[in-house]
């Protein structure tokens, strides 16, 4: 498929925003359950939520560049019963709203206790809003990934590994950003975030490598026989019916040599996973924030390359009909 930059930006930016939001909620939860003694200030969470909101907004802006008629974008919310794209369009603003609310609640320190459990732990408003926001963010990972995983005519995408990978990569980049932010803010949560970021980055790498391997072993359900319905073992296209280009020859292929794509795979494995993992580990050990900051930046660039490769490697069934120009 032909990767669209708007969608690369959209999926990586909102993934990082959702991951960061989930990191903040996790950090707060660590305190609530008593894993860390000192709670962060409300301003810390509000600042983090502001960064997450910025990432989400940038992603939303990028998505509009993908639409040819963005003035009708409101209509996309109407078919949520059947379309994952429509569901994403509904859940994304919900996540943005919840993130905003989470930041506001923390900024103003609205923490009335809503519920006290038997073990003397209590649920306050900020934590409750955090849980709701986290749930929405996880739902958004599902919606975004299912847009691609539900296209059954692109076998590289049509698997639950797409959902796993979108979620893990979003979480990894979000936690790395959270670690960088916490270290800049001098927060005691830095170590938690760095440890989680390291684990998530390595998990994301493992899952992505598995998907790369899986994609080399795919079998197409269709063949030239069923495509034109002629029962012959040897069918080749002589003409696709036109000499110029068409939507079918531009949208469904990327036009980059397979050597280059293979190089990009190595590049993203290094930039999105290996290098950030090393940097996070170093930053974790030494407590130096430039390392963590660099890790977050490098990882984001790496994930953009990863997303490009993900789209480019999708091979659509319709390409069988467009093999030869003459």
């Amino acid at each position, binding site marked *: 498929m032909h990767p669209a930059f708007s969608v690369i930006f959209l999926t990586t930016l909102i993934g990082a925003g959702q991951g960061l939001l989930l990191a903040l909620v996790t950090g707060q939860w660590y305190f609530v359950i008593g894993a860390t003694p000192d709670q962060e200030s409300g301003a810390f969470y509000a600042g983090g939520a502001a960064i997450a909101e910025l990432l989400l907004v940038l992603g939303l802006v990028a998505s509009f560049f993908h639409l040819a008629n963005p003035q009708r974008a409101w209509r996309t919310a109407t078919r949520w019963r*059947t379309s994952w794209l429509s569901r994403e369009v509904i859940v994304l603003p919900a996540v943005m709203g919840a993130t905003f609310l989470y930041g506001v609640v923390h900024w103003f320190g609205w923490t009335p206790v809503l519920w006290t459990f038997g073990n003397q732990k209590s649920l306050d408003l900020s934590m409750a809003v955090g849980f709701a926001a986290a749930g929405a963010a996880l739902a958004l990972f599902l919606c975004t990934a299912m847009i691609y995983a539900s296209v059954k005519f692109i076998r590289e995408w049509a698997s639950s590994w797409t959902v796993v990978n979108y979620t893990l990569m979003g979480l990894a980049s979000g936690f790395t950003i959270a670690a960088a932010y916490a270290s800049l803010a001098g927060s005691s949560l830095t170590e938690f975030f760095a440890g989680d970021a390291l684990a998530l980055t390595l998990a994301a790498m493992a899952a992505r490598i598995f998907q790369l391997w899986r994609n080399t072993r795919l079998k197409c359900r269709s063949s030239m026989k069923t495509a034109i319905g002629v029962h012959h073992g040897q069918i080749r296209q002589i003409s696709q019916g036109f000499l110029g280009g068409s939507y079918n020859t531009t949208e469904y292929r990327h036009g980059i040599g397979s050597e280059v794509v293979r190089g990009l795979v190595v590049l993203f494995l290094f930039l999105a996973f290996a290098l950030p993992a090393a940097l996070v580990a170093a930053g974790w050990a030494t407590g130096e924030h430039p390392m963590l900051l660099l890790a977050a930046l490098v990882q984001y660039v790496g994930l953009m390359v990863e997303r490009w490769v993900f789209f480019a490697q999708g091979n659509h069934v319709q390409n069988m009909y467009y093999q030869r120009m003459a």
Partner: protein
Amino acid sequence: MAKKQLALVIDLNVCVGCHACVTSCKQWNTSGWSGPLPDQNPYDADPNGVFFNRVQTFECGTFPATETVHFPKSCLHCEEPPCVPVCPTGASYKREEDGIVLVDYDKCIGCKYCSWSCPYGAREFDPIAGVMKKCTLCVDRIYDTSLEPERRKPACVLACPAGARLFGDVNDPESEAARAIRENAGYQLMPEWGTSPANHYLPRRKTYMRLHEDELVRADNPLKFEADLPKPNFTAPSIDDMSSW
């Protein structure tokens, strides 16, 4: 009776690959209700254009034992169209009354998601209007009562000089289209995806004729051999009264 489903039946045994359906489709639709079908750089390097219908050519076998198959391809108006439920706006829809799959250009946002969900590559994006376009089965012709009844057919069907294209309700067993499918082993493309295309194709058929020896040699030839008849006299009368030579 099953729901009405208008569709095309394309006889691959008859199609000669002349592209008359391609040009007539482009002409009718670019100037009509569903147009324009824009071309970009039509006279320059790297031209690119929108068509609802393409004729492709395939070759089966290895030379010299080959067979050429011309294969017209357009939206198949699937009975279970995977392109419709994925549309986030509802711009893509399948008509209840006749099963035609259409795009409402006033609702489409141009996200292209529907085209990814068509295994046949039948949808083509119009980059000028920013909306998705595809074969409409000439919905603006087939119900036009200002046309004579026999002209109320898709432009491609009327244009085909070989008569390779039939149009009708494939769910009505009495229709010409349904009968052609039934009697000539009509089939659907890529049945493995469960899309149940409404358009059908009729397969290539080999026509054989068995001739027996006695059909080649005149059994009633009294001389038992073939030869020119004796030349008549120059003045002998002939059938046209001119000359017997």
